[in-house]
């Protein structure tokens, strides 16, 4: 069971890396998803097309996964107010740090950016603390 999830984690990671690498090779762009969403309205027009297309690809992947009833399409155990608070924090923080798990965590680390390493260590730490507290509260 655990080996299975390690293997699928590795395979999924390779797909993510291939996509992010291809986006740089083909279009000279960083696959930073938080930034793509956040700046969608204010981006230059050529860029809006690119962002919309990439985000549509993500949506499409979700739709296809739902057709095949992918078991990893999880359900959030949180209530709506908590989802809203979490969303606000993720949006605000990601914009402030100029990158999220994909921008800093994948693309930034892959280009050896010191800023990204700092960001990843920081959000992993506060994320772990929050998850620990949450699992304590929920139990």
């Amino acid at each position, binding site marked *: 069971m655990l080996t299975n999830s390690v293997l699928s984690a590795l395979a999924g990671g390779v797909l993510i890396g291939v996509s992010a690498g*291809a986006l740089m090779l083909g279009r000279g762009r960083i696959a930073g998803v938080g930034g793509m969403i956040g700046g969608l309205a204010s981006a230059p027009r050529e860029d809006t097309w690119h962002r919309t297309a990439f985000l549509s690809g993500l*949506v499409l992947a979700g739709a296809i996964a739902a057709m095949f009833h992918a078991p*990893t399409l999880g*359900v959030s155990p949180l209530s709506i107010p908590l989802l809203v608070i979490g*969303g606000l924090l*993720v949006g605000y923080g990601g914009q402030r*740090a100029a990158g999220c*798990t994909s921008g800093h965590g994948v*693309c930034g680390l892959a280009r050896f950016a010191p800023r990204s390493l700092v960001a990843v260590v920081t959000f992993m730490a506060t994320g772990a603390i929050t998850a620990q507290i949450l699992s304590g509260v929920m139990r």
Partner: protein
Amino acid sequence: MKQIAFSLLCGLVFGAGLVVSGMTDPEKIHAFLGAKDPSMAFVMGSAVITCAALYAIARRRNPAPFAITKSIDAKLVTGAAIFGVGWGLVGVCPAPAIVAVGSGAGWAGVFVLAMLAGSRLEAMSSRLAPSRLESSRPAPDTESRSPSPSNL
């Protein structure tokens, strides 16, 4: 048109990777961040190694997007800290949330809307802060906030 299709394809592959790896399951992320299931670390590990290999080729062709121009500042650290709290709370980050919206998950829709509001809020507040000192013009650094890779 070809370029748009290419971006779409990249998004599709990226999304497939998130689904396959389990990143779209909030419970898995909670288990990872709560130190109960280490397998999610392999997602980032293999993604970074694969991406770094392709970036090395891209860098040889055109080093411009790889120039590191911004330094580590308080804004980066506080932003990442706030991001992490939200991520730890909900168990999804921006990309998996978009994938989950595509799968028809209502909870993800709520999360994404709040996320949009949060990032607007930050963009507005950081535009206000410096321009208060000068004039009502938007601060010049708002330009550099758009997707130039050197921004990370």
